[in-house]
């Protein structure tokens, strides 16, 4: 059994390295994108082997769903037959070698820093503090109570990214597909209930097992992308819904900030949540951030500000 586990892990590592090499150095753009998507799949398996199902869940939701969709769409906008960039000019060679040497040095330094980290990490401290957080799953406790400020900043960064993408201009309309697609509306009708059910399930799981707002939001965002693909969400393009859209996009951040300030009023510490309110407040923040993340990912996918 041990030998088999070793063989499995070696196969996984070899596949990962090969796909990463392919994604970086293949001369074909489409091939690079598909290799990147397959790389994410194997990466999720690696996280599973490393006993980190929370990260595997997030990796699956963000990597397989939204990143792949964004890359495929960006590829569809590029004209065919332009330079692939895999053949550097002569004067770029020293720069390339310098960059590779720098990356290798950084990787070695990171590996050394990771080796120096105390083992087995902070899991014991988190488990000891779990009773004071209001949730029974360690990762959720860290994300939404113990280190809530980091999570809040992540939401702010996503909102800033949406503003940046929208500042590029009006949303792009899709080109016509190469063939007729009669099955697509049926597929989206079949899948929409699942795209609501699964995020709700993940949110509920988050309080006591791997799950939570980020994977839930990413899955719901992928459902939103499917809505945009089948042109089933025309309301998002309307000018009179602009204010509503902006409010919904910032609702997760606003609620998070309100909870943090409320905690400051009640206990005197920023982001300190009183224990008797913690389960309700954390669930509310998770739902609001999940919905916000879903809408933000959908907003990325518009590639421009709607309603202009």
């Amino acid at each position, binding site marked *: *059994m041990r030998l*088999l*586990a070793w*063989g*499995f892990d070696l196969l*996984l590592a070899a*596949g990962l390295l090969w*796909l990463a090499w*392919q994604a970086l150095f*293949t001369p*074909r*753009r*489409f*091939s690079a994108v*598909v*290799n990147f998507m*397959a790389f994410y*799949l194997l990466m*999720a*398996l690696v996280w*599973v082997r490393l006993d980190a*199902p*929370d990260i*595997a*869940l997030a990796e*699956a*939701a963000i990597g*397989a*769903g939204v990143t*792949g*969709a964004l890359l*495929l769409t960006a*590829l*569809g906008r590029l*004209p*065919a037959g332009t330079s692939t960039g895999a053949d550097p000019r002569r004067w770029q060679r020293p720069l390339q070698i310098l960059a590779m040497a720098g990356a290798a040095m950084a990787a070695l330094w990171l590996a050394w820093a990771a080796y120096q980290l105390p083992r087995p990490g902070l899991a014991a401290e988190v488990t000891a503090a779990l009773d004071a957080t209001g949730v029974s799953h360690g990762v959720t406790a860290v994300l939404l109570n113990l280190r809530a400020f980091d999570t809040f900043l992540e939401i702010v960064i996503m909102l800033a990214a949406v503003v940046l993408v929208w500042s590029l201009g009006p949303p792009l309309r*899709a*080109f*016509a*597909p*190469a*063939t007729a*697609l009669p099955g*697509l509306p049926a*597929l*989206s009708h079949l*899948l929409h209930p699942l*795209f609501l059910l*699964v995020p709700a399930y*993940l949110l509920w*799981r988050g309080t006591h*097992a*791997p*799950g939570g707002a980020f994977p839930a939001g990413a*899955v719901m965002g*992928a*459902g939103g*992308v*499917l809505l945009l*693909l089948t042109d089933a969400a025309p309301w998002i393009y309307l000018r009179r819904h602009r204010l509503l859209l902006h409010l919904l996009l910032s609702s997760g951040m606003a609620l998070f900030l309100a909870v943090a300030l409320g905690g400051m009023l009640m206990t005197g510490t920023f982001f300190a949540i009183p224990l008797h309110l913690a389960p309700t407040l954390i669930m509310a923040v998770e739902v609001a951030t999940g919905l916000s993340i879903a809408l933000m990912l959908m907003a990325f996918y518009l590639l421009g500000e709607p309603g202009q």
Partner: protein
Amino acid sequence: MTNYLYAVGAALLLANAGVGAWRILRGPTSADRMLAAEMITTSAIAVLLLLSIISDQSALVDVALLFALLAAVAMANFVTRTWTLLRDDKDTREEAGHD
């Protein structure tokens, strides 16, 4: 004994995904490559389900569920947004242009 068989099955399925990676390398059209990626997804789902039985972690079933749901979105994305007729070359399909 059953766990041993499951582990052998998981390793074989991973090797199967490797065959899919070879198809991504070969092509020849973008549709072939996309289908190979979907095949790798299916293999990964099966591997995850087997691993969840071996290690008795029910969270892995959730990961497999996400893969299954999101693979459909990736495919819908490919046919509507990548496999399109570009404005510049309306006569040639993308699959001919991109490979």
